[in-house]
């Protein structure tokens, strides 16, 4: 399959998935009892205000009509207005998404930079004390809830040892945030911890699998030194499954971002989503879900493309 038609097909499938997501999410939202009006307007709102709200937001129309209307809006790039923040959802998201992206991308990059070599190292030292120690540490990292980890980080590295601020940089733009890199240290560490735990495991097992492959023996027979075998051959071969996993990890990263954002006072997408969820702010909720799902679908798509780059066999359709 040529790269071109592959891309077209994948993008079409991705669109289908996003459409499916909107349908499911829309139906789920409207299955909620009570509707958002009372929640948004508070206990003091009167019945007529609630009716007016429902009318204004079109919530009194039949569900399919609402969906078609929503879809039509969506096609025109309009995500609606937030019930509570009286701003267009698209604007809210464009303001906050870059910050969250920065955080998640940094966490992911840092996480991978640590996880990948760690996994390889463990595979090489399989069943030696280092392997056991790192395995144990990564399990601990994995099993520590992010909020717990964040609290410990703040306690230790901000209160006891005043090395890093307990707050993420407070600027609004990415540039602002980047201008205070020391503030990013703790949030990024908290966000990267599970990433390290999970991906070092994947990398370890992929490397172990590859170490038993015949081509390793061939390379050894050619006098390639163990280190070079690892870096030149085993590493790349082990990376393919890890890359494939990366796409599916995006929602998890977003989930982590939510907690990290709360903990380190860094209002981003995760927090927006959480607040919207807490306050039944349907348009924001839908917008966030849409963005996250598009990000996930794009992530998997990118992972697929990346796999084709790394592994020429995938492109040729035999793996």
């Amino acid at each position, binding site marked *: 399959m040529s790269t071109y038609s592959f891309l077209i097909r994948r993008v079409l499938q991705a669109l289908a998935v996003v459409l499916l997501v909107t349908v499911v999410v829309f139906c789920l939202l409207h299955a909620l009892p009570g509707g*958002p009006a009372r929640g948004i307007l508070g206990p003091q709102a009167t019945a007529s205000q609630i009716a007016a709200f429902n009318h204004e937001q079109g919530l009194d129309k039949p569900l399919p009509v609402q969906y078609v209307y929503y879809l039509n809006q969506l096609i025109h790039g309009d995500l609606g207005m937030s019930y509570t923040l009286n701003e267009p959802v698209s604007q809210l998201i464009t303001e906050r998404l870059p910050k969250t992206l920065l955080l998640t991308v940094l966490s992911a990059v840092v996480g991978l930079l640590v996880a990948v070599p760690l996994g390889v190292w463990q595979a090489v030292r399989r069943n030696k004390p280092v392997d056991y120690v790192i395995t144990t540490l990564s399990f601990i990292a994995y099993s520590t809830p992010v909020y717990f980890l964040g609290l410990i980080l703040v306690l230790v590295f901000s209160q006891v040892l005043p090395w890093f601020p307990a707050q993420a940089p407070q600027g609004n733009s990415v540039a602002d945030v980047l201008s205070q890199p020391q503030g990013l240290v703790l949030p990024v560490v908290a966000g990267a911890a599970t990433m390290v735990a999970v991906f070092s495991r994947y990398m370890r097992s992929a490397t172990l699998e590859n170490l038993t492959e015949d081509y390793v023996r061939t390379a050894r027979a050619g006098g390639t030194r163990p280190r070079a075998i690892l870096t030149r051959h085993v590493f790349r071969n082990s990376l393919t499954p890890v890359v494939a996993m990366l796409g599916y990890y995006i929602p998890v990263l977003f989930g982590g971002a939510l907690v990290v954002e709360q903990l380190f006072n860094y209002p981003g997408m995760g927090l927006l989503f959480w607040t919207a969820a807490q306050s039944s702010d349907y348009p924001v909720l839908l917008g966030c879900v849409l963005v996250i799902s598009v990000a996930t679908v794009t992530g998997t798509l990118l992972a697929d493309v990346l796999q084709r780059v790394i592994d020429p066999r995938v492109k040729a359709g035999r793996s």
Partner: protein
Amino acid sequence: PSGSKNEINYALPANFTPNWIVPIGTPGHLNTNNASISQVLWEPLIAYDGSSGEIGWNKDNSLATDAKFAADDKSVTITLGDRHWSDGEPITARDVEFWFNLVRENKKSWASYSPGKAPDVWSSFETIDDRHFTLDFDRAYNQQWMLANELSMIRVMPQHVWDKTSDSAAVSDLDRTPAGAEKVWAYLIDAGKKISRYASDPLWKTVSGPYRIKSFSTSGRVELVENEKYDGGGAAHVKQINLLSFTTVAAEENALRAGTVDYGYIRASDLGIKKSFTDLGYHVERWSGWAVTYMPYNFNNPEMGAVFRQLYARQAIQMSVDQKTLSKVLFNGTAVPTYGPVPQGQPSAFLSDEQKAEPYPFSNSAARKLLTDHGWTMRDGTMVCTSPGAGEGQCGEGVEKGTEFRMRVLSQSGSTETDNMMSALQSSFEETGIDFDIKTAPVNSVLSQTGQCEKDDPACKWQLSFFGSAGSWYFPAYPSGDALFASGGGSNFGNYSNPEVDRLIDRTTTSSSLDAMPDYSKALAEDLPVIWLPEPDYQVSVIRDGLGGFAQDSLANFHPAMWAWTE
């Protein structure tokens, strides 16, 4: 820390983002923090608040200097002070009329509207001269109620800048026609939705308050700077106020510890480690609210409604609530036992002695006895109605034989204090023989599911509801309970209905008698329309030493102009 004596960093409540400044608002934009910011920019006509420590008319921050009620309590004449907008124009009765016209024509979309209240209570607005006007009422009203709850809602807006329908349009007297008023309203509301333009839009540059906007970000940070043209009595002491928003209390506490906040708050449970904050140069102060906290009964619930309608049953339930211990232990002493509809955190003339005296003191055994005296028998730890009927010593009308005393609460999630209180209540109810199931959900979800309903509605499944982690109901200055407990009241979720109480409530707003409020307080403390619970403090403030000059307003407003560095 702000470092400079010219600035103060104030922490807004966790997870709140300011999103409205316009003195008129549509539903959904109602929030005391928004209101506080708005009032610092555009002073109210009559600021009726607790900024001095007691609830009353704060004349320093009001545009009116006097309000004279007619002898028949059917009109009031108000005098404006000699004040000017920041652009130098005088503030006149025309500016008040502007607000009046807009609200009257658009009352349906006005957030604070409820039928029979403002602006319905005012039949006409008569300008006497630039600084005097008269408002006529549709009938006689209690002066204090009128002043504290209704007139205090009037805001004075710069008609000479705002009376238009687009940014570029010329200003005219559009508000004087209904159609014009609607258009101006729409224009202002629309402009109000553009948060990112708050700092730049020329509309918002003409202010009357001690501060003006320097910056306003959608992620929550607001910077206010002194309005140099301010000519009122409540001028700013500090040049710049920074309002900071926080994602969680924990994040805010971190900022406190890091010293980046001058005026913040901590969780009640952290009161035990007060010292760690005082060591950092803060003092800790409780900020109690003008509010009550309760769990409404759903009197129309098909399973338990009939039981709830029995006063003795409600009494048994109330007797099983140990408010004193709950307040002391679970809230670390930052909650006030409250036994009726009038807030008990502050002394007030509204509170009846009966309410104050705890009409149904905590006693599991008394509660149990009350139930067994009314035809209930304990079976496997749960009370069961064994003697149905409406007569003496029987369960009461509508309660069927074999009914088990089992109730279910839909309680708001996410608060440790609430979770603990529910656990404690469950334990205590069980002691009495009452089963108490707890189901939790986010507060919005709780509110959505706590609707007024008829017996057969599918939405009538809720029995008890709790949405009061931060207080269930914040009152305006005059704590009348019409929306809450009057038959058909907008927020009378459980359809409580008692003709006698209805009469008392009506009296609180219309009669000038000083007994009206205490009578109402006594009646509801005894009739138990809801389960009364301890009222938690609005917040436990942590204030930098040297910052003072103010009292914490129990109406939950903040007043930056009063803040001052004292040393």
